[in-house]
């Protein structure tokens, strides 16, 4: 139960002279730091942080946590984010001393177990993706996109080709165009057909000797598998370009089809989605990338190698064509350990069943909502589908029906679907139930949704009614940004 005083801002709880820690006195002879540093290098006073006792810190953050919806507490069908159950066993494993309390610069002979895990993960991701060479270094999906596009640039540089353009469909996630620009490319959006597939004729118009990479999300953000993917990849390869697969939706196809088998040259995984790394309120993630043998030489370094003669694992830095580093140390290892543990918990049979059940759950939910919500892209989907609240808005005179329905779901204890993405569907509500939800949960959710769309427009427009705050004024937040607490002047 929430304690409202404890959720005041931490700065308002501060009392001069309090502290949450008590450090032992120094056991070496004390000297005056002023003698060591140049004039002005030392601060004249301690940083003006709040002064809080340990119990108050605990009470404050514990109470704050209760203001969040989370996978542990709520059904969270947030499309594209794969909010599946985060196994507790992986948390315990990742916290083992031998995995959590090791320094990134320890000699390889003292971290053979860790290197074996990372090497094993490289191997398993290569097998799952059908792309043989793997770098675990990128820190999130978007970072994997960036690293792969930089790799493509290096590949073309070495071949003496000047290719300037990256293309992606209009349904692509915002990170695709943003990564393309960061990697120094021009970006071109390719429209989709009304059935959600890439418009091949439009794509052809844009393919030429400037084409560097076509980025495709398959299954797409519309929850559809684009069966033209082989044809698309042939077209792109014919003009000398490369195919990048945004692997955010791998949950739908684990063990069923592999990007390397349908024409992809490069891809990233989002282990924090597909392999259930907890999302942490916005991170951490990881963004391992897998590429063809030809592109492998350009991957960021180091990668983990195995030396046959000594039968030991090592960090392979001897990769002269590598684009270099994209992150310090080895990468988001803690997330990778959880992914390794997750994949091993499932094995080949279990991974395929993840995909099967994710797709079954999504199709079932679709079948339960299509009677009262438009699903413009058909009656079948992969692991998620995009409904549209547009006609409900028209009937009810609501300007933002997807938002209103989303907010009303909060009153019933559901985290809403992703709304207003992808951009190609009006009033989009993107639902991804994941495989770890039961039929009962999906039934109850669909029933609630049905009741909501029949509620009066006034009730919807004013929702949520039961959360600790009502709808915030986002316009004011952006117009007059207050981005930190400042002491009140009195």
């Amino acid at each position, binding site marked *: 139960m929430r304690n409202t005083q404890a959720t005041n801002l931490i700065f308002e709880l501060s009392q001069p002279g309090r502290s949450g820690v008590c450090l032992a006195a120094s056991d070496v002879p004390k000297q005056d730091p002023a003698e060591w540093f140049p004039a002005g290098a030392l601060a004249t006073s301690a940083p003006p942080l709040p002064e809080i006792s340990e119990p108050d810190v605990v009470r404050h953050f514990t109470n704050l946590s209760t203001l*969040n919806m989370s996978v542990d507490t709520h059904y969270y069908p947030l499309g594209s984010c794969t909010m599946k159950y985060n196994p507790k066993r992986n948390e315990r494993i990742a916290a083992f001393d031998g995995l959590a309390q090791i320094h990134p610069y320890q000699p390889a002979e003292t971290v053979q177990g860790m290197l074996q895990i990372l090497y094993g993960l490289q191997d398993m991701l290569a097998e799952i993706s059908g792309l043989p060479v793997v770098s675990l270094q990128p820190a999130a999906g*978007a970072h994997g996109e960036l690293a792969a596009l930089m790799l493509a640039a290096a590949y073309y540089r070495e071949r003496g080709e000047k290719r300037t353009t990256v293309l992606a469909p209009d349904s692509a996630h915002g990170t695709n165009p943003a990564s393309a620009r960061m990697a120094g490319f021009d970006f071109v959006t390719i429209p989709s057909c009304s059935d959600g597939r890439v418009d091949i004729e439009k794509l052809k118009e844009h393919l030429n000797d400037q084409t560097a990479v076509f980025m495709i999300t398959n299954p797409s953000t519309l929850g559809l598998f684009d069966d033209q993917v082989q044809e698309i990849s042939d077209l792109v390869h014919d003009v000398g370009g490369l195919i990048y697969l945004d692997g955010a939706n791998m949950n739908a196809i684990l063990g069923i089809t592999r990007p390397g088998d349908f024409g992809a040259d490069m891809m990233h995984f989002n282990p924090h989605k597909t392999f259930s790394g907890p999302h942490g309120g*916005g991170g951490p993630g990881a963004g391992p990338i897998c590429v063809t043998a030809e592109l492998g030489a350009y991957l960021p370094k180091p990668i983990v190698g195995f030396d046959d003669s000594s039968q030991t694992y090592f960090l392979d830095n001897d990769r002269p064509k590598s684009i270099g580093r994209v992150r310090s140390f080895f990468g988001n*290892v803690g997330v990778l350990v959880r992914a390794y543990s997750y994949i091993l918990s499932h094995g*080949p049979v279990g991974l395929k069943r993840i995909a099967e059940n994710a797709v079954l759950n999504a199709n079932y939910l679709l079948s339960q909502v299509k009677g009262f919500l438009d699903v413009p892209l058909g009656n079948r989907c992969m692991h998620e589908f995009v409904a549209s609240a547009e006609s409900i808005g028209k009937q009810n005179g609501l300007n933002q029906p997807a938002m209103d329905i989303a907010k009303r779901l*909060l009153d019933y204890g559901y985290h809403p679907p992703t709304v207003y993405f992808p951009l190609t569907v009006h009033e989009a509500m993107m639902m991804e139930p994941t495989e770890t939800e039961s039929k009962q949960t999906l039934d109850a959710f669909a029933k609630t949704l049905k009741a909501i769309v029949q509620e009066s427009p006034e009730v919807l427009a004013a929702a949520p009614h039961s959360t600790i705050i009502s709808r915030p004024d986002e316009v004011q937040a*952006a117009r007059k940004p207050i981005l930190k607490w400042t002491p009140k002047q009195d």
Partner: protein
Amino acid sequence: MPYVFNTDDEQAEMLAAIGAASIEELFECIPQDMQLKRALNIPAGLGEMELTAHLQALSVQNKSINEQTCFLGGGSYDHFVPAVVDALASRGEFYTSYTPYQPEVSQGNLQVMFEYQTLICQLTGMDVSNASLYDGGTAAAEAMLMAMSVTRRNKKVVVASSVHPEYRQILKTYFACIGSEMVIVDCGTGTTPVEAIAQVVDEDTAAVLIQNPNFFGNVEDVTLISEIAHAQGALLVCSVDPISLGILQRPGDAGVDIVVAEGQSLGTPLLYGGPYLGIMACRESFVRRLPGRIAGETVDRDDKQCWVLTLQTREQHIRREKATSNICTNQGLFALRAAIYLSLMGPQGMQDVANLCTQKAHYAAEQLTQHDRFELAFSDGFFKEFVVRDTQNDVQQLLQQACENNILAGLPLGQWYDELEDCLLITITEKRTKQEIDELVNVLTQ
């Protein structure tokens, strides 16, 4: 198949509702010739007991810092993590939630972000902070890209060689694609030579990047370098050690325009290098160029104070190719850890921990250099790390000898700096006792 709950009967009911004869039918949209007609070639699935045993067996093959004494640093530090940090950050309501897109049910995470941003501003003396980037290295790269956008100068940046070598490698990778020049200023004397900076910074320079304390542990003349950069209209970007700010002048008070840091020291264990925390804070006027998420204060429809994600028109999900960065998933959980850590420490705790580090580091340096074999490579003031030269030029033997005595003695610098081939970077945190330091000296001078 541990986490699927629907029984065979339920699955059959669901298929009937869908109007599909089988699960395979749901995959008919994937052309047959693309489907994998065999099982994946990965190990068979393990139950929780076998899985735990398997990873336990791999875990014990690693020698943790609880089985040896760690004098390794170089951007990843063995500082003490209070139990409170682990206890709070392992609450499911924090770690199994997503980015707070629905503010009404994310006030906990949003308030944490807002508090984190404030704490970072208090610690660094800067005006605004974002809610986290991936790590210290990518934060430095993002800061340099941001500086180019703020100054509208795309040609050139200047980087001190005393910046973490891996951060410089990341910068090199990022800059290779955009065709801007990166001039490295050699810091062979242990700190950034101010005259050399003055020579290379010109009206085409977007920014100068330094690190303070620098990679060798030495304290830089930040104010002077900022004056040189500003005289040419360039920005000063400074990568800092957050622990050092318990006693060192805050970068915001020394003329720094963009501060970045590796936030691991603030309550995160070593984790073999990640996940960590990229800190970034800057001047108010640059806020619309900041990469990453930002929480802001506002009011709800009933005029109640609350928090939302704000200034989102900087971000990829709104601006796509015109965004300030491509970052989406960040390091929220580690920003939470840092917020808890800083709240616990308070001003006194931060001052104490910084003081302990520097006192003990100076003791270690004095003890070691009492022996003829060792001398300090640089004469500058250092914080918690120092570079020691082995006059017998046998760093590998020293490390080996220490390893046999369960000591990680330090980081050999020859891998990055040719002229420091006979040198070790030794790091002392508050966790190292006098006894452990004496033992290190003993072992290295045997």
